[in-house]
């Protein structure tokens, strides 16, 4: 018996190329930090943004290169079996790298507008992205935990980045406390699973289960339950979602978008891998849990979004709803289901980042104008933003010719194929409910528009008419179509179409139709372009997701 096991150490052979994207996103922030610490003058925020953009592009390039390596040679492992190099992980890397580039663009415009200097946003975002990538590619529970923590801790701080708003600090605090809580649960789960199977390595766990079918003992199942809770927290599944609206609302808006895309990507990637690949044999045990959680998540997300007046909160619930959809793919527990989830995750990342980028611009200086009222008549003041937001929201609602539609179709068809008919029906119902609150924003934006080339006025008028019947009940209705048509009636006076939330912006003496920062505009256009282009020309991305799953390690 010895506490310190002093036999000869075997050094793992490290295939650096397999973790190149992560390395880039870990090294770049260190460089930025050093530069900022050592430079005599304050550097403009654009320098850091440029650095982050370059790092993001480099890691995107590295990821794509990895893809070209994985596709012909098949999946493999690296770093002593701790890292999985397969299509699945590489696709998530591509997604996260893209989000990094977009976040650099959006963050630049945001930080410049808010007058916040320093490298913190960029550095933390890159660390967080590296963590998410690690979660996706980790083939070992401990490494997943490591990625989870790298990702989460950076996100906690990012949430509190906007120090002037109390909400930001509150968000950071809540996220941190609950995140730490759930991380602890997750870690405990790892311990139990290790205790039951004797390994934290995912393939070895799968191996163990394959050879010990009868051993579905309490220890292992309890460990699985704890792991599930840890994941559910990260992906904001009900009832582990309650932090989401507060944190999404409080965080600086670009951070919210980043968080929504990256944290979900990392969390889901690990969840899909662990449960589909390693615990696949125990699916009879976890499938009902996923089923129930998916149902509750779908419904709670959609229903609660209905009653929100704050757009960021509404989008937070909508992201919960989306999480429910992705869970449906996992519940199917088939290759097609996983491919559907992966596709959903991929296109959702672009949709949500773009949406929050628009919200960032609309919120104006101070980042506070998030009330639905700020969106009234947006089409007149900011036709570009309104059109982009309309596109992205319609995509989230699952309107055809967008990636959002294909994602929902893919998920539901996978569920149907796996004979989860009830779940498919519930998912469709929730999509129908969700369509309402997306459309409400769209209608609101176009209701004030009197005439113009932008988009059809009859559409707006009809929307107003349809909504008016059902909207007599709640405060929401006051901001809904009914009020919109009222605004339309007095639309000739320019004041009438000014948003209620304009007060915040006026305080800073900014003109109403302030320009959209070029970098944010570029990011928005990229997201919207992706959503539309690959919604119409669907094959490439669908094929990518399918291949990625075939190359599952």
């Amino acid at each position, binding site marked *: 018996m010895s506490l310190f096991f002093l036999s*000869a150490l075997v050094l793992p052979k490290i295939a650096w190329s397999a973790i190149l994207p992560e390395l880039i996103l870990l090294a770049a922030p260190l460089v930025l*930090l050093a530069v900022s610490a050592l430079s005599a003058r304050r550097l403009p925020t654009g320098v850091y943004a440029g650095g982050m953009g370059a790092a993001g592009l480099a890691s995107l390039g590295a990821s794509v290169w990895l893809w070209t390596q994985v596709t012909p040679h098949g999946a493999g492992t690296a770093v002593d079996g701790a890292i999985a190099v397969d299509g699945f992980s590489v696709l998530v890397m591509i997604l996260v790298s893209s989000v990094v580039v977009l976040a650099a663009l959006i963050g630049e415009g945001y930080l410049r507008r808010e007058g916040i200097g*320093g490298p913190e946003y960029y550095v933390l975002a890159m660390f967080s992205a590296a963590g998410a990538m690690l979660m996706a590619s980790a083939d070992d529970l401990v490494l997943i935990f490591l990625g989870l923590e790298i990702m989460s801790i950076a996100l906690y701080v990012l949430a509190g980045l906007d*120090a002037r708003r109390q909400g930001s*600090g509150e968000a950071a605090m809540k996220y941190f406390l609950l995140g730490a809580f759930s991380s602890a649960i997750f870690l405990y789960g790892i311990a139990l699973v290790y205790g039951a199977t004797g390994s934290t390595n995912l393939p070895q766990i799968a191996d163990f289960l394959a050879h010990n079918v009868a051993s579905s003992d309490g220890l292992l199942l309890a460990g699985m339950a704890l792991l599930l809770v840890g994941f559910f927290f990260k992906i904001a599944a009900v009832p582990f979602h309650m932090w989401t609206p507060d944190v999404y609302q409080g965080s600086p808006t670009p951070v919210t978008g980043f968080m929504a895309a990256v944290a979900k990507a990392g969390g889901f990637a690990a969840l899909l891998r662990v449960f589909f690949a390693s615990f696949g044999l125990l699916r009879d045990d976890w499938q009902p849990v996923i089923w129930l959680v998916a149902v509750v998540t779908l419904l709670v997300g959609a229903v609660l979004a209905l009653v929100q007046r704050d757009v960021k909160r509404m989008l937070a619930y909508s992201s919960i709803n989306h999480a429910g959809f992705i869970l449906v793919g996992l519940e199917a527990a088939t290759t097609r289901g996983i491919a559907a989830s992966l596709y959903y995750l991929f296109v959702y990342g672009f949709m949500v980042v773009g949406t929050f980028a628009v919200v960032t611009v609309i919120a104006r200086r101070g980042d506070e104008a998030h009330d639905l009222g700020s969106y009234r008549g947006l089409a007149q003041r900011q036709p570009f933003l309104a059109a982009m937001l309309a596109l992205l929201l319609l995509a989230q609602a699952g309107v055809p010719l967008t990636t959002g539609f294909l994602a929902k179709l893919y998920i539901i068809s996978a569920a149907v194929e796996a004979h989860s008919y009830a779940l498919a029906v519930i998912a469709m119902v929730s999509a129908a409910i969700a369509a309402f609150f997306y459309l409400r924003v769209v209608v609101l934006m176009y209701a004030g528009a009197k005439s113009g080339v932008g988009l059809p006025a009859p559409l707006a008028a009809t929307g107003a008419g349809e909504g008016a019947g059902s909207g007599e009940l709640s405060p929401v209705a006051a901001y809904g179509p009914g009020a919109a048509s009222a605004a339309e009636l007095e639309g000739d006076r320019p004041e009438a179409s000014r948003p209620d939330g304009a007060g915040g912006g006026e305080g800073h003496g900014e003109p109403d139709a302030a320009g959209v920062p070029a970098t944010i505009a570029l990011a928005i256009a990229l997201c919207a372009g992706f959503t539309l282009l690959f919604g119409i020309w669907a094959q490439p991305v669908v094929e990518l997701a399918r291949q990625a799953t075939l190359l599952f390690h």
Partner: protein
Amino acid sequence: MDNYLPIFVLLVLGFLFAALSFTASAILAPRRPSVAKAAPYECGIVPRNEPPERFPVRFYLVAMIFIVFDIEIVFLYPWAVEFRALGTFGLVEILVFAAAVVIAFLYLLSNGALEWGPARRSAHWSSARTTASTVLHISPAPSDPRLSQASGGEAPEHETPAEELAEGSSEAPARAHPHEAA
């Protein structure tokens, strides 16, 4: 089971240590409370209302910075023990690790984390200042009119930075307070 014995011993030891500390302090410390002693420290000025709990953030920060290096040392020990077995690879790894920590430390230094004097800040942070910004960022930005005053030497001598931080919570009342007392 043998393997777990040391852990168990450590556990017991830990509990014992904590329990002993508390008991010792309870038994040994003299306790003669008075109204003035119980009142929160306000530079000798009688507090007008119940102030919130205050904590000088700077101490915590230093403690946290210390922990970072503490952890680094935790990693350095096993590396040193296995130095030969790990070879060049281990050396490079530990250097990378150390570099990361050093860069973080540099960042802290450049942000004035270890400066105890009145504020002289790299103004990474915006001018608008609230409780939250104060708590999070050690000391306020120079563009704050109050602070430029303070660095100009007009601030009362007894106003330590830590206090100032705490006071910065709400701008107007905090300013009015000393004048009124005077």
